[in-house]
């Protein structure tokens, strides 16, 4: 360390923040220098998002100090932080877009708050301004479409585009790629590097270690609200994982070393549970056949809008079947409603947590039992005891960390919420379990837990949809790749490498 070190853009010292008895931040000290991309990682509930909320002025710390460019920094609100050059993309993207407004209006949301902006605004002016923001971020979205009609990935890109469009000293990205597929993630990485090259300090949160490895100059590991280790490049994944998960690191270590070949041999023998003939992933796509076997995990992958969700929702009764027909254990199966699917033994865990799974203010317990209310009631009356037992089971199985089964689910960290809303479907004891992007925001340890539970669940057939080939490779016995609503290829686990999948996903040959 002989080169002159530039003074840090942001320096945090002794930062603490508690929620009731939970110490989300417990004396965090760290700094980020100009031009540096600092990775911030940690298990679910480690306190990453809380730290980011404090830095962005959304939450006030209970102790500690922050300096920005050497000056004390205590933002009274998000506007203060923005004005000081701290630009943030929060983890929950639905906290970033306004439903009922158009894409253009969402892209220009920040200009409303800006002081000295023009008071008079016309749709044309908003469109022009939004066009500029979109172009700077390389986005091609229908500006006049209501934002709620866009898929989650596009919404996430809107939020990112907004942050990139503002003048930044410190750019904070909290799991920005959770809904993006490889191509978009790569594009984002390029933009982040460019920003860093221009002297901006970047704080980057992700559970995708590969991304962290390739992007970050330094990795700060948070555990239980404290900084445990700081790694500088070159990064060693095993050490990072161990620092993240502490004593629980051992069972996780072989995650990406899990031998696909060993799976491939073992798991193709079960009887067909669900067979589909002539189905389409999206209305314009090519029809194809599909069968799911007992004990098998089928991975479905593809780019944004390739039809993964469309396919799973049709199988799960959440959307009418476009074409073709299905049989479940030999009997005709055409669910008109998710209820019918659940009754037949097909469970669909939806993709978007906050829009499709979370009921605001409800406890963890109530979330766990919502799909299986009938099982927890006698003569229509609910049994609290049975519900609590179920919540405990799910929490224990997936290592949910948080203030307990009766706490509102919002008080859990993002990843822990995800474990609850995915894990609850196992309570329905389905024959077919459809998981749409189940690993969003889930740390590597928990990802392995979910994967293990899913594959140990005996005779169940499982479908996992994900736009991240890495995740698919880790969990699937067989992979279906979709491209623009049509099947682009099918690979056995042994043949599926992230590289081959990526090639198929983008429409090329494997």
């Amino acid at each position, binding site marked *: 360390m002989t080169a002159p070190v530039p003074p840090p853009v942001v320096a945090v010292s002794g930062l603490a923040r508690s929620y009731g008895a939970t110490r989300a931040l417990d004396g965090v000290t760290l700094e980020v220098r100009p031009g540096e991309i600092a990775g911030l990682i940690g298990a679910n509930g480690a306190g990453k998002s809380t730290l980011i909320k404090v830095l962005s002025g959304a939450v006030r710390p209970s102790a500690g100090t922050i300096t920005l460019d050497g000056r004390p920094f205590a933002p009274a609100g998000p506007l203060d932080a923005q004005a000081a050059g701290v630009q943030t993309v929060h983890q929950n993207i639905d906290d970033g877009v306004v439903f009922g407004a158009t894409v253009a209006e969402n892209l220009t949301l920040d200009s409303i708050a800006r002081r000295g902006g023009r008071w008079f605004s016309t749709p044309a002016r908003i469109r022009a301004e939004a066009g500029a923001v979109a172009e700077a971020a390389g986005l091609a979205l229908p500006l006049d479409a209501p934002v709620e009609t866009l898929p989650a990935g596009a919404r996430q890109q809107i939020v990112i585009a907004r942050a990139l469009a503002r003048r930044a000293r410190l750019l904070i990205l909290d799991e920005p790629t959770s809904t993006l597929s490889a191509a978009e993630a790569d594009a984002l990485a390029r933009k982040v590097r460019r920003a860093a090259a221009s002297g901006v300090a970047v704080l980057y949160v992700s559970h995708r270690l590969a991304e962290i490895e390739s992007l970050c100059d330094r990795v700060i590991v948070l555990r239980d609200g404290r900084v445990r280790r700081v790694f500088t490049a070159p990064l060693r994944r095993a050490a990072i994982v161990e620092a993240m998960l502490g004593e629980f690191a051992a069972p996780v270590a072989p995650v990406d070393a899990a031998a696909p070949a060993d799976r491939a041999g073992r798991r193709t023998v079960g009887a067909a549970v669900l067979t589909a003939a002539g189905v389409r992933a999206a209305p314009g796509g090519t029809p194809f056949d599909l069968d799911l076997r007992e004990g098998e995990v089928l991975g479905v992958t593809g780019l944004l809008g390739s039809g993964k969700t469309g396919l799973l929702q049709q199988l799960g009764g959440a959307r009418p079947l476009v074409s073709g027909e299905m049989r479940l254990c030999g009997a005709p199966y055409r669910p008109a409603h998710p209820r019918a699917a659940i009754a037949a033994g097909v469970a669909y865990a939806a993709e978007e947590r906050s829009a499709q799974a979370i009921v605001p203010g409800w406890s963890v317990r109530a979330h766990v039992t919502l799909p299986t209310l009938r099982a*927890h009631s006698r003569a229509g009356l609910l049994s609290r005891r049975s519900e609590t037992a179920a919540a405990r089971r799910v929490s224990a199985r997936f290592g949910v960390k948080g203030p307990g089964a009766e706490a509102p689910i919002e008080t859990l960290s993002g990843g822990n919420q995800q474990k609850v809303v995915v894990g609850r479907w196992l309570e329905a004891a389905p024959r077919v379990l459809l998981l749409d992007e189940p690993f969003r925001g889930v740390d590597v340890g928990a990802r392995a837990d979910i994967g293990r539970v899913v594959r140990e669940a005996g005779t169940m057939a499982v479908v996992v949809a994900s736009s991240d080939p890495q995740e698919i490779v880790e969990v699937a016995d067989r992979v279906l790749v979709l491209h623009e609503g049509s099947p682009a290829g099918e690979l056995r686990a042994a043949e599926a490498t992230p590289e081959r999948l990526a090639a198929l996903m983008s429409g090329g040959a494997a």
Partner: protein
Amino acid sequence: MTATGTAGTDRARHGTASAGARAAATAYRYGLPALLVAMVAIFSILRPAFGTYANALIVLQSVSVVGVVALGVTVSMTTGGFDLSAGACVGAVVMVTALAMVRFNLTGGTAIVAGLLTGLLVAGVNVLLTVVARVPDLVATLGTMFLFQGLALILTGGQSVAAGMTVDGAPAPGRYTEGFAWLGGGSIGTVPVPVAVFALLALAVYVLLHRSRWGRALYAIGGNAEAARLAGIRVARYRALAYVVSGLCAAVAGIMLSARLGRGDVGAGDPYLLQSVAAALIGYAVLGANRPNAPGTVVGALFIGVMINGMTMLNAPYYAQTFVQGALLVGALVVSYTLTPGRRAAGPGR
């Protein structure tokens, strides 16, 4: 206790503050019921006649019709709906039952059935509009409200229906039957029938909303309809159920009101919309629920009933009653909501 770690906004939780916090949480949960008890105590001291069993029954009877409507409105609110047509439904049922007995000389039983069917008809229109045609609840039920207010008037050419009224030159043949009148004026033991009905329905709605899986489903829809749907809840059916319960409650209230009035009074239902909505809304703040709930609605209805009855007994002029009602309500709300544990921490309100 050191000052560290508490510099922030989350005062109400740690260390020394815990006793205070517990008190605040209690005030939040029990603020309105406590206020209700205090009001009863004060009125009873100032006016011994207030605190008698006989008077308690009168107060209960005075809130029973409103209370029953409010229970229905509460159910309609759980799914995120809002039944603006409840008052009009009460009015229409009053007219229909009166017409059935007075004009068409039917039995009390038939009148009751006709009244309940009217409630179902209102519910049906609401369901068609909100669930089938997907009109937003407030707008749809506003339309239904006008429709049935108008219908109740048109049925009788804008006139009230009373025994002995002239129909086409001849006096109307029928009158209110004894049995029907008993629903309004009779009693079971010492308990007036409307009070018993209110108690029974309150219990039923309580069990439905807070102890049954159907109630859980209703609240889930109100919280996040898409999440409810994907969890396998048939949203349309439950939304219809909510309006049916609301319509039936309003019909029961209309039947009791008709029996109490002994005639089909034009516009008899009108005051019940605002009062029942008020009771249900006051109920939001009860027991820290911050959502529509059955015990809250009962407390809300009692709150208004006790206040008005007590003030009347103290000979307060009518125009002071509204003000005191407002002041008490505002006070209770402020206490309830500002003392919510942890509310002050960052929230969308800032």
